């Protein structure tokens, strides 16, 4: 091992031999499990080439099912983050207000909506639109999915914004007040611009959560996106459910890995750059945002 580990000393000759033995055993067990899995798949004809060929050797499956599905996923995720950003920023700032009643109200709303599963909000929005609006069947699922995601993620982003502002050194506020800025000026020209930079990694990381949550709309609200194409495509190509699910999962993994990579690069850049205060809201663990706990209390794992 290159980096010094808190757990292990640098291995000597005997330890190296033992590690080699463990590695061999692990590879054996792992290969055995993979083999069993493949045999089971083969028994159910899931390894046949005609089950996989629509995706690996044909374009029709992509243009008919996967790409339109991906479009649905990206539209829902994009709309949600665009709408959640300003609302979240508003609530995040409101929570830091000097007026107790504004801060308390915003705080209660944020904690309340962070405590509710996003699926509950989507179900509510869907039925709400059925009863009180005349949105057509074609757009209603999208609106319902976005409404649920916007409400939930506004609350999360409010916390991110608050953490971003709180992560700035106190001297920034003191200096701005010392040169005679008002509270509004302090927020708009000193704190917010720096906080936005500091919270970029966390925001990008949250987009991953949003992309993953759009799959709920496909599975439970008939919104046509990547997840909901699984059933249609697998039925059309003769029950190649494993192949279809694998391809869809790989698409999600590629998109989300790219986003996570961007978030990590942003975080590293913010931590190491010479300019700025070095304040940053980490990209790690955005998914487990728990009500009652601040974002800053979750240590960023390095």
């Amino acid at each position, binding site marked *: 091992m290159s980096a010094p580990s808190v757990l292990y000393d640098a291995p000597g000759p005997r330890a190296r031999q033992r590690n080699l033995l463990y590695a061999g055993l692990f590879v054996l067990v792992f290969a055995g499990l993979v083999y069993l899995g493949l045999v*089971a798949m083969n028994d*159910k004809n899931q390894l046949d080439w005609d089950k996989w060929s629509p995706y690996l050797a044909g374009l029709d499956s992509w243009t008919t099912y996967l790409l339109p599905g991906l479009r649905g996923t990206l539209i829902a995720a994009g709309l949600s983050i665009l709408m959640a950003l300003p609302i979240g920023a508003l609530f995040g700032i409101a929570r830091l207000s000097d007026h107790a009643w504004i801060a308390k109200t915003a705080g209660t709303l944020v904690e309340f909506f962070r405590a509710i599963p996003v699926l509950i909000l989507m179900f*509510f929005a869907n*039925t709400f639109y059925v009863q009180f609006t005349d949105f057509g069947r074609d757009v209603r699922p999208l609106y319902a999915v976005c409404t649920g995601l916007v409400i939930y993620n506004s609350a999360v982003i409010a916390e991110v914004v608050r953490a971003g502002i709180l992560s700035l050194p106190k001297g920034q506020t003191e200096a701005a007040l010392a040169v005679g800025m008002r509270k509004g000026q302090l927020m708009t020209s000193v704190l917010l611009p720096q906080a936005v930079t500091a919270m970029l990694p966390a925001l990008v990381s949250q987009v991953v959560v949003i992309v*993953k949550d759009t799959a709920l709309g496909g599975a439970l609200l008939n919104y046509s996106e990547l997840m909901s194409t699984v059933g249609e495509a697998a039925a059309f190509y003769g029950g190649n459910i494993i192949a279809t699910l694998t391809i869809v999962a790989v698409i999600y993994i590629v998109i989300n890995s790219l986003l996570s990579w961007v978030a990590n690069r942003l975080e590293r850049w913010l931590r190491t750059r010479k300019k700025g205060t070095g304040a940053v809201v980490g990209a790690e*663990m955005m998914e487990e945002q*728990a009500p009652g706990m601040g974002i800053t209390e979750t*240590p*960023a*794992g390095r």
Partner: protein
Amino acid sequence: MFDFLSDYDVLGAFWVNVQLTVLAAIGSLIWGTILVAMRVSPVPVMRAFGTAYINLVRNTPLTVIIVATSLVLSQTFQVTLGADNFKDIGFRLAVLGFIAYTSTFVCESLRAGINTVPVGQAEAARALGLSFTQVLRIIVLPQAFRSVVAPLASVLIALTKNTTVAAAIGVGEAALLMKEMIENESDALFLVTAMFALGFVILTLPTGLLLGWVAKRVAVKR
């Protein structure tokens, strides 16, 4: 106004969520610990497996994993997990899916906890002549455990909320019941939603406040 409630087993539905949460929490704690042991082990193959598993599973939507347990394990391979009726099979598959997904977050929290222990602590312990198990037991793990209370509590709360995803494979839990209720009782949309929202607030908020307080108490001041 509340008459229709007697037709539905709301508490029973929430009880399913609680059961899902508890079973999945125990399972993912075990599997997550095994994963983190691999991820920080001195054996490169195991580290590679741990990292690959985390990156693949974390970036897959939970919905896809849960639906996959049903479509792949149950419908293609006829895995029943020892259950003999549809309801139990769905429940057990959901628990399995939650364990596969949540364990990645448990693993990352534990790894972050281990990384908060300064290397000097272990070096000093080794210099004093403590053995590997002694270093782990007396020096590293006690400090690591104290700093993972807050992240693990967050994972638990996220899991509680995530159990609603089991609705995707028809497990009769709170979100599914809510869907049924707001479709049948069209005049009680707000009442029903408020009731279920409150139910989840009751499940998650006290846990968050309590464990957040505990985390602050036990955290190692550095």
